[in-house]
């Protein structure tokens, strides 16, 4: 290999390193392959047109343009490291819970138990008159926490059993999910919105962040290739 080719391969590597920043390993491999193919074709065409090898290398690299601009566009269309990590971890969770029929039935049992607990607590509070005298009695508190647990676990745990495998059904599920989350927030805050804002911000930013990554993945991956958890 001549020194000029070596130095320009280094220049191409530098270009690729900048253009593939933040992308997942698979995306980096894809970009490296297509840009290297493109670069070699451009270089050969320049040599055929009469350029020296040095000029051909420079022309081929200059034609690729600004690697930062390319990186911004690649990050919009290819999977990034953060998104790849989320895809893997969500896949592992789904595999774990759906691995055996027992675990699957456990997922359904948790919201059912929480709902029964909530009903029992409210019944107890009503019978003992706690609603009228002590609004913050233990029974009411347990009932409220149980309802929140039932709603949240029903949304997130019963999903493997639901027939959600089309984008339209997924949209309906997500609308129901956010409605339920909003309801849960209202139950937790109990009208005292300003006082409990810290609770909302500290608990629900994780859900919002995860949802933002999923939205990005849904845009990048064709619906026919979505894993189950992207529908949710």
């Amino acid at each position, binding site marked *: 290999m001549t020194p000029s080719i070596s130095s320009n391969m280094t220049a191409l590597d530098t270009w690729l390193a900048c253009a593939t920043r933040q992308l997942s390993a698979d995306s980096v491999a894809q970009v490296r392959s297509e840009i290297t193919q493109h670069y070699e074709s451009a270089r050969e065409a320049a040599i055929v047109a009469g350029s020296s090898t040095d000029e051909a290398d420079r022309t081929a690299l200059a034609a690729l343009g*600004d690697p930062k*601009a390319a990186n911004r*566009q690649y990050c919009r269309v290819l999977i990034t490291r953060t998104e790849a990590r989320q895809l893997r971890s969500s896949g592992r969770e789904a595999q774990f819970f759906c691995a055996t029929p027992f675990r699957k039935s456990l997922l359904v049992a948790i919201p059912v138990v929480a709902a029964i607990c909530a009903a029992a607590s409210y019944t107890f509070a009503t019978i003992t008159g706690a609603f009228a005298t002590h609004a913050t009695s233990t029974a009411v508190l347990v009932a409220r926490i149980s309802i929140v647990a039932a709603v949240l676990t029903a949304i997130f745990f019963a999903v493997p059993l639901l027939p959600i495998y089309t984008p339209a059904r997924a949209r309906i599920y997500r609308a129901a999910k956010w409605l339920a989350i909003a309801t849960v927030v209202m139950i937790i805050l109990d009208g005292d919105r300003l006082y409990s804002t810290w609770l909302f911000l500290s608990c629900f930013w994780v859900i919002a962040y995860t949802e933002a990554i999923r939205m990005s993945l849904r845009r990048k991956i064709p619906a026919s290739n979505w894993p189950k958890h992207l529908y949710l």
Partner: protein
Amino acid sequence: MNFKGTLPTLILESLAQGPSHGYAIAQSIKSRSRGVLDFKEGTLYPALHKLESAGHIQSYEGSENNRPRRYYRITKSGRTLLAKDRAEWRAISQAVTVILGEA
């Protein structure tokens, strides 16, 4: 010349002529516009990936001069989009020409 936003349409038009790889698509756009539409070729592939994930084009592995290449071909939805984009472009082009007083 800045032709931001029209690159996907130009790619579809190029692929409507037949399957091709990235470098050939870039050269086709430049040569058919007689060099007027010059763009940085590093931005061609993100546009190709976007069209592919939207289902307007498909990619497959091929080879040229015994070298592996990723080829792209237009799909039915790509042809539909191209026809729509072409009609829109004609309408815009005619309207601008009328406003500029060159009709």
